[in-house]
C-alpha cells in the first residue's frame, strides 16, 4: 500500500513540467559549481603538491559541492513537498485516500517515501558528477559516502517538515513558504550564534550535516535527523487524523 502511494506520488511529481524545469536548472547549478571548484583545485594543485599532508581531490572538490547541494536543497525541497497534501485537499482528492482502507500512517509514509525517491533521483547527479573524477584520480570513498548518507538524512528531515506544513493548509504556496521560513530560520539562527555551545546549533539540520560533510559519522547527528523526521511525520499523521475529527 505504502509502495503504491509512493509510486503515484513519484509519478505525479514527474508529470508536472515544472519538476523537469527545476531538475534541469538544478543540474546546471551543480555542474557550474563543480566545474568552478575543479578549476580552483587545478590551479592550486602545484602548491598543494608541496605540502606534506595536502587535502585530496575529494576533500577540495566533492565536499564543497555537497555543501552547496545541501544548501540548495533547503530552498528547493519546499517546492516539491508543498503539493503533497495541500494539493490533494485543494483538488478534493483527499476523500479518496481518507475513505480507502489506509491508515493515516500509511498515507503519510507513502507520500514521504515517494518524495524521498524523487529527491534521491534529484540528488544523484552530484555523486555521479564527482565519480567522473575517478578517471584521473583516486577518490576518498569514505568521505564521499558519508556525504551521500548525510545528504539523504538531511533531505529526509526537510521533506518530513515540508510534508507536515503541507498537511496544515490547502494552499501549496503557503506550505512552501512556511517550510522555507522554518528552514531558513533554523539555519540563520545557527550561523548567527557564535558561541560553540549555543543551543541553536542543536536544532539546525545544516549544522548536523557539517560532520557528515567532513567525513565524520556521528551517531548523535544521525539520531537528530531521524528524530527530526519522525517528529514531523508523526505530526503530519496527527493532522490527517484531525482532518477526520474537525472536518
Amino acid at each position, binding site marked *: 500500500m505504502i509502495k503504491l502511494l509512493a509510486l503515484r506520488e513519484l509519478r505525479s511529481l514527474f508529470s508536472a513540467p515544472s519538476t523537469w524545469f527545476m531538475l534541469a536548472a538544478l543540474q546546471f547549478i551543480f555542474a557550474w559549481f563543480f566545474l568552478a571548484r575543479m578549476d580552483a583545485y587545478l590551479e592550486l594543485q602545484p602548491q598543494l603538491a608541496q605540502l606534506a599532508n595536502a587535502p585530496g581531490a575529494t576533500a577540495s572538490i566533492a565536499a564543497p559541492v555537497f555543501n552547496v547541494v545541501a544548501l540548495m536543497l533547503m530552498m528547493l525541497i519546499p517546492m516539491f513537498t508543498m503539493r503533497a497534501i495541500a494539493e490533494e485537499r485543494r483538488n478534493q482528492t483527499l476523500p479518496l485516500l481518507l*475513505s480507502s482502507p489506509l491508515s493515516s500512517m500509511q498515507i503519510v509514509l507513502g507520500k514521504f517515501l515517494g518524495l524521498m525517491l524523487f529527491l534521491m533521483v534529484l540528488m544523484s547527479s552530484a555523486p555521479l558528477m564527482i565519480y567522473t573524477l575517478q578517471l584521473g584520480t583516486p577518490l576518498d570513498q569514505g568521505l564521499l559516502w558519508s556525504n551521500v548518507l548525510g545528504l539523504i538524512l538531511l533531505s529526509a528531515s526537510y521533506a518530513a517538515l515540508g510534508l507536515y506544513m503541507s498537511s496544515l493548509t490547502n494552499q501549496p504556496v503557503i506550505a512552501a513558504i512556511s517550510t522555507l521560513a522554518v528552514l531558513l530560520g533554523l539555519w540563520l539562527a545557527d550561523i548567527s550564534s557564535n558561541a560553540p555551545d549555543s543551543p541553536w546549533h542543536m536544532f539546525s539540520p545544516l549544522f548536523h550535516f557539517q560532520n557528515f560533510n567532513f567525513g565524520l559519522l556521528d551517531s548523535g547527528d544521525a539520531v537528530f535527523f531521524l528524530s527530526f523526521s519522525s517528529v514531523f511525520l508523526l505530526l503530519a499523521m496527527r493532522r490527517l487524523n484531525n482532518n477526520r475529527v474537525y472536518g
Partner: protein
Amino acid sequence: MSNATPALTLSAQHLKRSFGKQTVIHDVSLQLHRGEVLGLLGHNGAGKSTTMQMLTGCLTPDSGSIAICGIDLLREPTLAKAHIGYLPETPPLYKEMTVADYLTFVARLHGLKAEAAPEALALALQRCGLNDKRNKLIGTLSKGYQQRVGIAQAIIHQPAIVILDEPTVGLDPTQIREIRTLIRELGNQHSVILSTHLLSEVESICDRVEIMQNGKLIYGDTSARMQRYGQISGFTVSLRNPPALSELQGIVGVTRVEQMTAHEFRVLHALEHNPSAELLTLAAQQGWHLEQLTPLQTRLEDVYAKITDAETSHAGESN
C-alpha cells in the same frame, strides 16, 4: 463475497456531528440491506454530504456507531473501509493520470491484487461506458465523463456498499438515464446509498427513501409509498376566455380552484375522479378557448410540507 455478505450491510446508529457550535447532524440512524438502493433526499445543506462523509470514514461522528458489514467503522477503519466505494460531491480525480492508470491505482488502493486489477478495470470501464476513453488524461475529459470516472472508481473493487453523493449532477439527460440504469444494476449486487435533491431520481431508482431536513431524518419509507405522499391530483389550466370561478368549481370532482393569473387556474380534484375530460367538453361547448392543460408536478416542497404536516399532527401533544 456472495454468501458471506450479511443481509444488513450498513447500520448507523444515532450519529451526531457538530462543527463548532453548530450542530449539523442530529441523531441520524440508517440501515441498509443487501441489494437495496437507498435515496437520501434533501435540499442543499440538509446534511446529506456530512452524513455520507461519516459513513465513509472521512469524518468522525461526535457520537454514535457505524457498522459496515458487521465491522465497526470507528474501531477497525481499515477493515471496514475495504467494503465501501465512495463518490464524493467532487469526484476525487487525479487530473494528470489516464483513466486506466487512475482506476487501476484506485483498485489497488482498495486492496485488489495486481493480477485481479486488469479484469476489474475492464468491467468498470465497460459498465460506465468509458472503454474508448481509457487512455485519455482525466483532466482533458468533459465533466460528464469525469463524473463517470468518479462512479467507476467507486465500484471498481466491487464493494458491498456503494455511496454516491449526487451522482447525476452535471450530466446531460442521456447520461443521466444511463447512470440511473447503472445504479439500478448496481443495486442488484451491492447496496447503494445515493443522495440527491431531485424527487424524480428517487422515484425512478430507489427502493427506499430517507428524507433529510436540517440534519434530521424526517421521513423514511419505501419510495413507492413516498410517492403517494407526493401525489397531488390536479392540473393548471389556461383559458383565453375564462368563465366565473364558481362555474369551474361546479364541475363534478373538482375540490378547489385557485385563480393564478387572469387566464390561469389551478384546479385540484379528488384522487378517484379526474374531471379533466368534463372540463374539456365544457370548454369546447361554452367557448372558453382552452390553451393549455398541465398536470401538477410534484415538488419536493410539497412532499416536505405534507410530511411535516403529518408529523406535527401525529406528535401534536408531545410538543
